[in-house]
């Protein structure tokens, strides 16, 4: 039965999660050099426009409409233009909220996912190419994956794997896609020799804070109601983010004797990534472990592994979201309890069941392979048909001017013209 408490909760969560995408733009924008600020903001925020219109037109339908063909791979077009989607009646996925609310709540997740990828491509990709890339990525990666994991009759759902708030669909898919795309795109000029200093830590901090607070709505909202599951998810998210921040600070203290804002906030964020798939399945104490371990895992990925393989994952979309998401998916398989959420058919490994962890690993593999392969395909085709990378001169000049003719702080010097 539709009830106002649940509607209020999911509506507000929709707003707060929507706010995360501009927040991500600030988070990324603060980390880049000044000359690429506008380009970074733009590459993230345009996703709002594009993903909304595509979702309304057909994306929602492809992801959540009844299965087309019965392969569990993609939905049909019966929900296109929000057909059969009502602001007063409940739909298939939730009995307590109107189907249109479910549709826009899912939309805000679909907006932020391609925006995450952009972090890997920062500072060297032409904006029109990013635009086209995101359009095709949504079509070929996001909608199918969302359908497989969450959709009626979806493939991965059928495996018995669980994913509370989007570990596979959102974090693993975007992180892995970022990795693949940034390898195909190539490194920034001077990568490995030069230091890329962030230009505005407070801007990064504002963005990180919006992400942190918004994430509670992100994970909590996935309970699709103001109920015990939402409380469980938010509580786990709080604990995991706090623990991850502390362990990141610990690592920095041990290695460098100093802690940084960039480190501490990154720690909190990876703590949130890791708990995302697990939030509504695991007990409180395990959130401490999930969060506490994600920082060393991601730290290693962002330093040792990245350096070793030499790919230029500029703002660590893969290091944070890909790696953190995989750890989160595995952790769900370790710590989930059917008593907490009967959607999980089995308990996690630490409680003795092996089926769930197996299903989780399979789901992760499918997500990694599927999104990696499709991203590679899109990038290769893109390279054939359009200019994907800016020229070295444009890269040196900065993408703000070369791609947008817009500076981030034109009159900041106080010199009027």
């Amino acid at each position, binding site marked *: 039965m539709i009830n106002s408490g649940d509607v209020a909760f999911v509506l507000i969560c929709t707003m707060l999660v929507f706010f995360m995408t501009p927040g991500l733009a600030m988070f990324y924008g603060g980390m880049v050099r000044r000359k690429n600020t506008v380009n970074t903001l733009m590459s993230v925020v345009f996703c709002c426009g594009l993903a909304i219109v595509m979702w309304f037109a057909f994306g929602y339908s492809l992801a959540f409409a009844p299965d087309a063909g019965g392969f569990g791979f993609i939905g049909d077009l019966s929900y296109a233009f929000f057909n059969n989607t009502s602001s007063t009646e409940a739909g298939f996925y939730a009995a307590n909220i109107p189907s249109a609310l479910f549709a826009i709540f899912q939309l805000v997740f679909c907006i932020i996912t391609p925006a995450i990828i952009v972090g890997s491509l920062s500072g060297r990709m032409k904006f029109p190419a990013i635009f086209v890339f995101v359009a095709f990525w949504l079509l070929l990666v996001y909608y199918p994956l969302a359908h497989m994991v969450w959709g009626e009759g979806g493939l991965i759902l059928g495996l018995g794997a669980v994913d509370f708030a989007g570990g596979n669909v959102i974090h693993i898919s975007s992180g892995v896609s970022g990795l693949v795309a940034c390898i195909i795109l190539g490194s920034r000029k*001077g990568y490995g020799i*030069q230091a890329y200093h962030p230009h505005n830590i407070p801007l990064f901090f504002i963005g990180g804070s919006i992400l942190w607070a918004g994430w509670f709505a992100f994970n909590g909202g996935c309970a699709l109601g103001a109920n015990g599951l939402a409380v469980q998810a938010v509580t786990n998210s709080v604990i995991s983010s706090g623990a991850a921040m502390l362990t990141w600070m610990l690592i920095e203290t041990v290695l460098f004797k100093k802690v940084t804002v960039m480190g501490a906030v990154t720690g909190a964020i990876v703590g949130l990534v890791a708990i995302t798939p697990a939030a509504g399945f695991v007990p409180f104490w395990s959130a401490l472990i999930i969060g506490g371990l994600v920082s060393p895992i991601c730290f290693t990925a962002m330093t040792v592994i990245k350096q070793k393989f030499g790919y230029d994952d500029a703002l660590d979309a893969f290091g944070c979201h890909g790696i953190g998401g995989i750890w989160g998916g595995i952790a769900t398989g370790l710590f989930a309890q059917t008593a907490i959420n009967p959607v999980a058919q089995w308990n996690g490994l630490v409680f003795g069941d092996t089926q769930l962890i197996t299903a989780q690993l399979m789901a992760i593999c499918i997500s990694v392979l599927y999104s990696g392969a499709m991203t590679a395909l899109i990038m290769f085709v893109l390279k054939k048909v359009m200019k994907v990378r800016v020229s070295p001169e444009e890269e*040196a*000049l*900065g993408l703000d001017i070369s791609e947008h*003719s*817009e500076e981030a702080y034109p009159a900041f010097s106080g*010199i009027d013209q």
Partner: protein
Amino acid sequence: MKLVEAIIRPEKLEPLKDAFLKYKINGLNVRQVLGCGNQHGWTAHNRGTSVIMNMIPKIEIKIVVADEKVEDTIKVIMDVARTGEIGDGKIFVKSVEECIRIRTGERGDVAL
């Protein structure tokens, strides 16, 4: 002693620093300036209105060198900072009467 003062494109600072390293010119300081000359800026679009940025961000480099190194320094700058397009900038040479290293109190060429 001479002061070689160059106004260059911002994107040329990185390669220039590398070049100086090679030529062992290692004391310098830089700042951002806005300049105008023959180059009249680029067009920005501001909610539909086209506006010209007619003062363009440039980098000013100052290097104090011994008299005999002036031409070398100029050459390095010319090699790296030239694109052939309007807006490449200028090099000005001025004379410096004295140089003192604050740390040691040394004066003259040894202090550079």
